């Protein structure tokens, strides 16, 4: 664990061990609030904030907390950061805070955050923990936004509705109407649509991974092609 470089940690968080696509953690907010891009970005930012903060704090106290009480301690830390985030959102983006509602406090129960605190931050130093929190949070947010894009286009036929809730007055005109006279496709807006879209995103990721594996295997074979042996009847090491 400790030998991982920062770039390896980043790759893990963003792709190889993506909390949403590989670990399948934090599915509840992931499926519930990704009805539009703005909700997805809002929840993603909140999650990044909590994840970085909790990883940082857990990493700082990792040598001072006895094993037996580490989980309650982690949960206390996470809950504090969620409260901070909630208050910040209440102050800066009140309307978005109202739309996301219960899912902001529910970040406490997002297993991705407790998972990173226990599996990574409690065993690693300050800098790797912060990088891990940031990249895991980014990986989560990217999937949230992707789901938001898919579901908003299919569900309502628009993109970037209400972006001014996060980005202020300048974003009022960001809304793109993709289909005119679009009858709302309720299935995509409701949670079942999120499940299907999520499944498709995971399928695409697995497809890309298997292509990468194949290419890596092909490269390897080319390197080893120098063998002169004609008959091979067993595994030669």
């Amino acid at each position, binding site marked *: 664990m400790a030998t991982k470089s920062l770039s390896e940690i980043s790759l893990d968080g963003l792709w190889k061990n993506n909390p949403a696509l590989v670990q399948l953690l934090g599915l509840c907010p992931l499926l519930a609030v990704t009805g539009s891009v703005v909700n997805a970005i809002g929840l993603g930012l909140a999650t990044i904030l909590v994840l970085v903060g909790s990883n940082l704090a857990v990493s700082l106290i990792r040598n001072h907390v006895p094993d037996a009480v580490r989980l309650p301690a982690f949960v206390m830390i996470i809950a504090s950061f969620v409260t901070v985030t909630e208050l910040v959102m209440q102050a800066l983006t009140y309307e978005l805070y109202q739309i996301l509602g219960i899912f902001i406090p529910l970040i406490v129960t997002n297993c991705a955050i407790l998972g990173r605190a226990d599996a990574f931050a409690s065993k690693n130093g300050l800098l790797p923990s912060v990088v891990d929190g940031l990249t895991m949070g980014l990986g989560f947010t990217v999937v949230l936004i992707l789901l938001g894009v898919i579901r908003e286009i299919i569900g309502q036929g628009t993109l970037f509705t209400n972006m001014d809730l996060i980005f202020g007055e300048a974003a009022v005109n960001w809304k793109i109407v993709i289909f005119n006279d679009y*009858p*709302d*496709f*309720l*299935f995509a807006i*409701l949670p079942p649509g999120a499940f299907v879209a999520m499944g498709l995103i995971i399928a695409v990721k697995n497809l890309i991974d298997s292509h990468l594996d194949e290419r890596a295997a092909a490269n390897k074979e080319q390197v080893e092609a120098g063998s002169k042996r004609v008959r091979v009847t067993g595994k030669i090491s």
Partner: protein
Amino acid sequence: MAINSAGFVNITSPHAHGGNTTSRIMMTVILATIPGVAALTYFFGWGTLINIVLASVTALSCEALILKMRKRPVGFILKDNSALLTAVLLGIALPPLAPWWVTVVAVSFSMVFAKHLYGGLGNNPFNPAMVGYALVLISFPVQMTTTWAVPFFLSDGQTISFSDSLNVIFSNSAAVATTLSDAYSGATPLDTYKHLASNQTALEIMQQPLFANDTQGGSASNWFAGGWEFVNIAFLIGGLALLALRIFTWHIPLSLLAALGTCSLVFGWDADMYVPWSLHIFTGATMMGAFFIATDPVSASTTPLGKIIYGAGIGILIFVIRTWGAYPDAVAFAVLLMNFAAPFIDTYTQPRTYGHVKAKRGMPAKPDANKDADKNVDHKEG
């Protein structure tokens, strides 16, 4: 079917058989829907036929496309008619004047997601046609509930003309579709009765033009359910023909109708408050559901006792959802819910194999008990 080096087709045993192939069974079922489709067209106009054609074209193209993507033999599998059957059932189930994109979304979702993502024909745990139907019913409630055609005797003695049907279904402007279809669409008898029953008596409701026959001041072409009774009888005839041809056994349809009838007699005995049993059995998708949807050999239960439980479960669920639910009909949801339960029912209703003791149900309580049972079997066989 592999072609060997000499150019002959290798076919595995048994070489003498009844001639029943998937393709033939599917085609028989499709042909058995003809009376029902004819009745639907007679009472409600061309919409159903247009839907069926549109659904078939969509289904075959989707199936061909995804078979190609899955690297399966396209021509061979397309010929098994299963995609065509799903399309025909969906075309019948969808409202006759539904916009074209409703049909296309329902059919492509049922083909791609409900059938091929699970591994194609034989591997789908849910009835594809009903998955597609439930999807559009949940997604487009307005289009799915306001586009039911009224029987011809309620719209000046004629159904909507063929060209007008095409206009309504394929029009891109909502305004054209609405003005044309408003004159020819209305609520189904089940829905109408349910809403009227809250403040009218059964006698008053039966005076409504949708329910009244000529002795009650209505149309001579009506009996008691605005044409739907004849549609259901037509599907019943087609279903009985399939039963006679032994495409399926009597268990599922009979237990479904018996459970639905019993429920509506026991809980809905008061016709002033609830929809009477006659409407439950003879309106909506009851007969089509009992004979054509619930009997799907892939997603239904397979053991004899299991089939009875499965059919009865669908019947009870249809009654419950129709009576206390918000949707006008319930066959799709009832069938899908029982599809969930079918593998579980099958596990607990395994019949006794000849020469063996009664099958163990579920997990053995103790490992020792299991061993004793095995000994008994050996002893008997020995």
